[in-house]
């Protein structure tokens, strides 16, 4: 098992990406609408988890409120669409920017704190958002029933109506997001995140504005969650405060950790395990929470860096182990 994974991971990244893309493009030819809808849903989670990968995997910060930004994206585009007749395509950038700005406002005062405090604040933020939505804040969120009759996304007269069209829409955003996230990982900012994650003090002493680069991670990750919310709202056309519940944040967090923190292939594996499998095996679905818990415990014992760990995180973990054993 170990050998097999090691061998798979040696295959150049680009081949994997192209093969996966080819399969993804061909899926609508062979899958029925139900399975496509499952994959569409998985694509939404992939976007949410890629956003969280920037925050948790690259910058090494805890964030347990990703679903709140998801809900903010969905509600922003829905409110603009329903009350002001703003088309989805114009509401989308507003929703993404708003999610990013709120990500900044939530994280900025607490970024100098250690990881666990960040986790607590983001959990609290998620609950505040959900409660505001339930309580029909400003009379525009529709309370516990949520909002309905949201338009589909349309651009240049083409409307994304069917599941196949929406599947390709989400696939498009997943592909460009992966491209962008990969570029970020190799950029100067990406290196700064690595330094901050490894040793904040040394990073600061080398001229990295640590608070600044951490805030950027938060903003980008939250903005991606906002995008996922927009795509969700524009296909389902009905949204409720349930989007922002804590369990959603936990699922997204688990996708990142289960797949391998900081690893893009890991996001797909994690999504498969956390979203696709439970949906396909509805019988087991009632047991999901228990099985996920069991899977997490087993993972921490047998593959602490995740199913498909990023090279870097695996090295960091083994370096820590060596330090612990020589100390």
């Amino acid at each position, binding site marked *: 098992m170990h050998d097999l994974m090691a061998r798979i991971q040696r295959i150049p990244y680009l081949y994997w990406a192209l093969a996966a893309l080819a399969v993804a493009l061909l899926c609508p030819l062979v899958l029925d609408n139900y399975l496509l809808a499952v994959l569409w849903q998985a694509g939404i989670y992939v976007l949410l988890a890629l956003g969280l990968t920037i925050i948790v995997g690259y910058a090494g910060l805890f964030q347990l409120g990703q679903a709140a930004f998801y809900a903010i994206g969905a509600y922003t585009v829905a409110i603009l669409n329903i009350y002001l007749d703003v088309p989805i395509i114009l509401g989308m950038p507003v929703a993404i920017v708003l999610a990013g700005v709120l990500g900044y406002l939530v994280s900025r005062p607490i970024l100098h704190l250690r990881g666990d405090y960040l986790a607590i604040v983001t959990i609290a933020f998620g609950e505040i958002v959900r409660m505001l939505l339930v309580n029909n804040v400003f009379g525009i969120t529709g309370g516990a029933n949520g909002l309905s009759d949201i338009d589909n996304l349309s651009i240049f007269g083409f409307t994304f109506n069917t599941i196949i069209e929406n599947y390709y829409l989400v696939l498009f955003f997943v592909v460009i997001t992966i491209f962008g996230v990969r570029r970020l990982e190799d950029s*100067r900012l990406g*290196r*700064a995140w*690595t*330094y901050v994650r*490894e*040793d904040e*003090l*040394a*990073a*600061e*002493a*080398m*001229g*990295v*504005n*640590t608070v600044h680069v951490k805030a950027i991670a938060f903003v980008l990750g939250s903005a991606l969650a906002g995008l996922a919310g927009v795509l969700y709202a524009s296909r389902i056309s009905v949204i409720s405060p349930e989007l922002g519940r804590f369990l959603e944040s936990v699922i997204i967090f688990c996708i990142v950790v289960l797949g391998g923190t900081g690893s893009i292939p890991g996001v797909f594996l994690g999504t498969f395990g956390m979203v696709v499998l439970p949906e396909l095996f509805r019988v087991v679905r009632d047991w999901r929470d228990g099985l996920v818990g069991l899977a997490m415990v087993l993972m921490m014992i047998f593959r602490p860096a995740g199913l498909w760990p990023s090279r*870097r995180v695996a*090295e*960091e973990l083994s*370096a820590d182990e*060596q*330090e612990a054993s020589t100390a």
Partner: protein
Amino acid sequence: MTEPILQLHDVHTYYGHIHALKGIALEVNEGEIVALLGANGAGKSTTLRAISGLLRPRQGEIKIAGRSVVGMPAHQIVYLGVSHTPEGRKIFSALSVNENLNMGAYSLGRAKSAIETHRRRVFKLFPRLEERKNQLAGTLSGGEQQMLAIGRALMSDPKILLLDEPSLGLAPLLVKAIFDTVREINQAGMTILLVEQNARAALKLANKGYVLETGSIALAGPAEQLLADERVRKAYLGEQ
């Protein structure tokens, strides 16, 4: 005479309620090696941390090339030409030697050719690092890790190098090699503020020294004078 590259005046710092530095004053001129000596807990590392901005002094003045830096965040002080090799080296064990060096040049941004010039200079100083440039830093020996820490600090092309205990935990032969390198760097024109427990070796290298005792400067003077001073000989050089 030109202005000192580093000046501290009446610097006080606290860790919580503990008064760590009680009015430090010192001066480092361009091209000098200045040794900061003292026992454990005397405030040597704290002084360096105050200079590089990792610790904010509650009172006093710190000037770099005449410019006050009190309250300036550490990442900005780097841009003024201060490079700090923290105690315990703080190299990035999961990154390669080259990646560690890249990190030292973070403040140079995208100046690729300048970065490569500095990298060549570091490799010339430490050929061992070039041999191991793709190796993970965590797999280097203690001496090599210290070389990497110094090399990384040189990558930002600083005006002054703050070295915290470069001989810590190294075998005597390696200690000598590190001190030789420090001299070599200095002869190439680098100003160095050196914190050391190994007082004799540090004073042989330095132009002048300061002896810290529980957060205050107990003695200061030219290195030869300190080497000859009876109190120093008794307390730090282990002579009867």
